């Protein structure tokens, strides 16, 4: 059974012969391996199928004409293929505008988040300063506190925005910032955006893994703090930062919470999607006073299309960048 023995028996001997010599061990082992791999393949296939299946169903249902929905002989393949549903959903969610808004707002916000979190993470990873543990506990709190706890307060303070009463004193009334992008941009720039605590954690973990001697060498050669950070640390950190950027972009894209509370002035796809049911009944009504209920199947179909349309850009993005997504986590995932 040892390695030497196997070589002695030789590769050219038949499996049966080798099995006989090993006293039945070889067959047992082989049977075990095959069973395990079959079970594993089944399990993996089942779970993968479960993840993919809703997308496939949504896609095929999205192509069905209204009469196909209620035809019980049709399950997956539409009989009357139509793209009309997409047109309807696009109108329901004020499509081109909302999609473009979502894209550029997500981009700007995640850039802001990445810049601020990178700086903070670097500060935490490399410098000793008083109250460091306290501030880091705050980062952990950021991860733990549900933003819903403070949503009412933020909502109020942005609706009636004022800096120590100065604005009210000069112009006579406070300003409503809630419809503009300013509050959320400020929040992202100060690490209070969506899941920023997590990004700080990930980036800090990465920066800690870089040897200090790199920076020391730079200091000896006369680099300043910022120069060292930009020239020495940043280039190596690009993959991790990129993955943080991707995460924040994707989560921003689908986010409803911050969008609903702080960016109410813009048409954002996720918010339009969450309102789709109520818009639908207005859309299908012939006039303003009529109140109709859209048939259930039809409703589900249109919502499904909405979700599908929301997913597609993200899946395409993921397909191209999945290495960055997973790799960075493998590098930084080993949390204490």
């Amino acid at each position, binding site marked *: 059974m040892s390695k030497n023995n196997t070589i002695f028996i030789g590769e050219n001997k038949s499996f049966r012969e080798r099995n006989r010599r090993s006293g039945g061990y070889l067959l047992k082992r082989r049977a075990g391996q095959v069973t395990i791999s079959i079970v*594993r393949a089944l*399990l*993996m296939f089942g*779970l993968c199928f*479960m*993840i*993919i299946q809703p997308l496939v169903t949504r896609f095929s249902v999205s192509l069905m004409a209204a009469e196909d929905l209620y035809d019980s002989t049709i399950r997956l393949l539409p009989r009357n293929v139509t793209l009309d549903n997409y047109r309807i959903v696009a109108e329901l969610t004020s499509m081109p505008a909302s999609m473009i808004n979502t894209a550029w707002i997500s981009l700007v916000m995640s850039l802001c988040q990445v810049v*601020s979190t990178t700086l*903070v993470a670097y*500060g*935490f990873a*490399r*410098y*000793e*300063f*008083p*109250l460091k543990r*306290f*501030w880091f506990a*705050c*980062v952990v709190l*950021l991860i*733990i*506190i*549900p933003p*819903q*706890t*403070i949503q*009412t*307060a*933020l909502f*109020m303070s942005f*609706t009636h925005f004022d800096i120590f009463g100065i604005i009210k004193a000069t112009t006579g009334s406070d300003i409503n910032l809630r419809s503009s992008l300013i509050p959320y941009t400020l*929040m992202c*720039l100060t*690490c*209070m955006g969506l899941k920023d605590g997590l990004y700080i954690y990930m980036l800090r973990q990465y920066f800690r893994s870089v040897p200090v001697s790199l920076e*020391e060498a730079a200091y000896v050669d006369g680099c300043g703090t910022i120069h060292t950070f930009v020239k020495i640390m940043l280039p190596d950190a690009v993959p991790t930062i990129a993955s943080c950027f991707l995460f924040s972009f*994707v989560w921003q894209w*689908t*986010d*409803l*919470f911050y969008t609903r509370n702080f960016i109410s002035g813009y048409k954002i796809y*996720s918010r339009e*999607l*969450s309102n789709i049911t109520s818009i639908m009944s207005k859309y299908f009504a012939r006039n303003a006073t009529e109140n109709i209920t859209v048939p*259930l199947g039809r*409703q*589900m179909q249109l*919502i499904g299309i909405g*979700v599908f349309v*929301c*997913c597609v850009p993200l899946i395409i993005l993921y397909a191209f960048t*999945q290495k960055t*997504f997973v790799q960075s*986590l493998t590098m930084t*995932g*080993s*949390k*204490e």
Partner: protein
Amino acid sequence: MKNKTRRNHWYEGITEAVKMYIPGNNTYRTIQARRARIGTRFILPLIIGFLVFMVRPLIISLQMSMSQVNVGQGTMTPFNVSLDILGTRMVLPFGNYNYAFVSDPDFTKLLVSEIGRMAINTIATLVMSFVIAVILNQDFKGRTFCRVIFFLPVILSSGVLPGIESQNAYFNLMTSISDAVNESSGVNLSQALQNLLSVSGVARDVFDVIFQMIDAIYDIVMASGIQIIVFLTGLQSISPSLYEAADVEGCSAWESFWKITFPMVSPLLLVNCIYTIIDFFMKNDNTVMEHINQVMYGTQMDFGAASAESWIYFGVALLFIGISTFIITRAVKSYE
């Protein structure tokens, strides 16, 4: 570069900070103080953000939860309620909390059911993601593909997407109809098995919990993208020589799994557990969250009650994080 000093009193950090940030003493001019100032500059965004967008709103929202809020004018008046505490009648500003627990017809019911769901889902997610990570760590064909698929839920179940279909009241109706159809036609294997096992009378409650998990398997897989990656990272960081040594000593695969793999990965159990709980509490399809949003933006526009309810919710979340941390640290320590 790093010199950690043990502090005798908690306030020494603050005195140190004062010395380091304010010129005019000897500490100010040391290299440590200089580096501390640079480090503080790096994390300045976080400090500002935390104070302005976290501490202040937290205080306001706590205040709000104890008062009646007028959204239009942005004013608050204390919402007092007289309560019997230990036989003495006291007037306390807990009107909204009283409302949440006593008057709100849905809140407590939803909270309890959501906690139960969370406990089951957390355990199931941890087990599931660990099993999947172990499988994905093995060498088989299509491993990369499976990894890509299993990470997809991170994108597909974020933000607005998971809740959107179940939020639709009709959807629930439809699923209940389809359940009924399945039940009557007897095709539903899980249901049949469940009935069989319930009839046989073996630990009925246990089976109920297990079947609840099985029914929720889609949700569980969709919620375990990050956890799988974290476990996978832990598994990959185990040095293969450990397994080799165990193999030489005559360990079976089963033994080396429990003696090597599990103890090495168990510290990540805590991280994943906390992540799962937080994720669950902040999910968009969470019924308590929906209810709070309903109270906040619905016909009531009752910001006071909404913030009281979100504080209760946060308290519960913290409690559960605390309990699980306690249990897991105990359990993990016993392995060391």
